[in-house]
């Protein structure tokens, strides 16, 4: 019967070349718990989560999704407890707000025999999750650093804007500095712009007052790049330097596509990684494809040549 169902499903969805397993006929509920859209990247992540859920619900009628967004770690813990108690979920896809407070609650979900997929921020204890999907933070810094090297073979003077002081930021900056070692590129100053446009604007204004010569800026984030560009514009020093942001905001990708001199390239840290995690978790229930393990989404350099495939005009980010 399972096999027959599988063939029926295959016939209906001829576009989807997935082998259907015996589990295909069973209803499965997948809970998705993510932080609320409180900044640009999270907004994009929410958009892609919703898009993935909509797509999968249409393609696999046997899958149910519960999507909850939380504005703080406490709310996220309650969301997960509610999903367990009232929706009887079979799997949980979670992007933890913070690692420590979420480790216990997610562990209890795993202990109850549910499938657990953790996205982006790891838990504080190893071996809880069945699947880990994340971006490559050291890679994010390394790819940026390598571009600076290649672009400034004779060295130069740069300033760096850092994010909110976190492990993520530390990993990125360390890898960036390592990639620059021995290149003759001098980092004049590093300050925290907190992944915020206004803070980045202020920090860059002060960098411009402090240093008479700056050849390039690693803004390390597209929101910060917006503030940085405005400050450079105000100081009238647009011909002097270029800016590398990161994370692939659509406006920035557009400028890369258009060959903007000040925004030559971008580095990905895709908010759509939540979609990868949801899709892979769904595969576990509708196919025989093995999906457990670690899946690290590489950070790649977006250049005018490949920018089009990273441009999502409908996404808020």
């Amino acid at each position, binding site marked *: 019967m399972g096999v027959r169902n599988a063939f029926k499903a295959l016939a209906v969805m001829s576009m989807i070349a997935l082998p259907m397993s015996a589990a295909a006929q069973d209803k499965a509920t997948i809970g998705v718990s993510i932080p609320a859209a409180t*900044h*640009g990247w999270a*907004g*994009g992540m929410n958009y892609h989560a919703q898009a993935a859920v909509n797509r999968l619900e249409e393609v696999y009628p046997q899958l149910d999704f519960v999507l909850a967004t939380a504005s703080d770690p406490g709310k996220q813990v309650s969301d997960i407890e509610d999903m367990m108690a009232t929706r009887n979920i079979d799997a949980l896809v979670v992007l933890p707000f913070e690692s420590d407070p979420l480790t216990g609650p997610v562990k209890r979900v795993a202990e109850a025999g549910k499938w657990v997929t953790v996205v982006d921020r790891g838990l504080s204890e190893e071996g809880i999750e069945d699947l880990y999907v994340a971006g490559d933070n050291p890679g994010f810094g390394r790819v940026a650093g390598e571009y600076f090297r290649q672009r400034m073979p004779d060295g130069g003077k740069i300033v760096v804007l850092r994010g909110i002081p976190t492990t993520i930021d530390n990993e990125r900056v360390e890898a960036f500095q390592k990639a620059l070692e021995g290149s003759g590129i001098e980092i004049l100053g590093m300050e*925290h712009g907190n992944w*915020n*446009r206004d803070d980045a604007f*202020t920090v860059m204004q002060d960098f411009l*007052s402090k240093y008479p010569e700056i050849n390039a800026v690693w803004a390390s984030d597209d929101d910060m790049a917006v503030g940085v560009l405005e400050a450079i514009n105000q100081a009238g020093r647009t011909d002097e330097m270029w800016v590398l942001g990161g994370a692939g905001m659509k406006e920035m990708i557009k400028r890369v596509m258009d060959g903007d001199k000040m925004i030559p390239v971008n580095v990905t840290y895709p908010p759509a990684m939540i979609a990868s995690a949801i899709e892979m978790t769904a595969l576990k229930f509708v196919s025989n494809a093995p999906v457990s393990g670690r899946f690290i989404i590489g950070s790649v350099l977006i250049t005018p040549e490949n920018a089009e495939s990273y441009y999502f005009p409908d*996404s808020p980010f």
Partner: protein
Amino acid sequence: MTDATTAGTAAVKTGRPSLDLHVIGPIVALLALILIGALMNPNFLSYGNVTNVLARSAFIGIIAVGMTFVITAGGLDLSVGSMAAFIAGLMIIVMNALVPTLGTGWPTILAGMAAALAIGFAAGLFNGLLITQARIEAFIVTLGSMGIFRSLVTWLADGGTLSLNFSVREVYRPVYYDGIFGIAWPIIVFLAIAALGEIVMRHTAFGRHCAAIGSNEQVARYSAVHVDRARLAGYVLLGVLVGVATIMYVPRLGSASSSTGVLWELEAIAAVIIGGTVLKGGFGRVWGTVIGVLILNLIENILNLTDLVSPYLNGAIQGVIIILAVVLQRQKKATR
């Protein structure tokens, strides 16, 4: 009672020979910061840097002038940061929507400015009515509206960023970046509002009523002060000033998101208190607030211009200086 003493102080302020720390504390702190900055970095006193710092101070400064009245009257408003983000978001939406009918020039921008003032007025009225008519604590009302405004702007922006139409932005941009006689518009607006605020606080019935209410509400009531009306006016004034601050803020980056104006309310309150206004109410000093705002912004500027401490410690340095500035002026205040 305090009303009478402060009015007296104002009248004889210029002629008083003895300098007490209570009055000059904030000024001493500001001068010390300027001296430190000038010694640390030669660019500190350059035209560009001074303009940057003053223009940056304008948003919080304009809001803090309004906050001075609210605090003087014994109130508090925690919602101003979220309100600024909300007004900025709506203002951008209004202007973008008007582009097809009014074009990308000044009519659209003036309509956006009017919208910002109207929304600020309405938001202030909302807070004020709940506080004065429904008799709910100001702390609770504005804590609630802080969450409401912040969520609304996140919702309006769909979690992302609201961006102003590009051509409108090009026309609007000079409102932040240009000025007259080399003084940027935000600085002019900030100083004008501060001067007006000082006059209103010292020389109008409304200003004196605020101090009277904050000092002793019952006594003010028996003295035929319209307590509710004056307090409501304070919140409405603050709302409108948040609108004015937003008008200066939007042309800077041309965007609003849920991270706009985060913690502005605390910066504004800190500036008011550093400036010598009493948090419990009863005494307010608008010129002190201006100095408080400048102190807060100078600290950040100096920390960015020098490599004295690890950037991780910036918040700690700011905290120490805020407390020091208040300690300096509170020593003589035991009598108060």
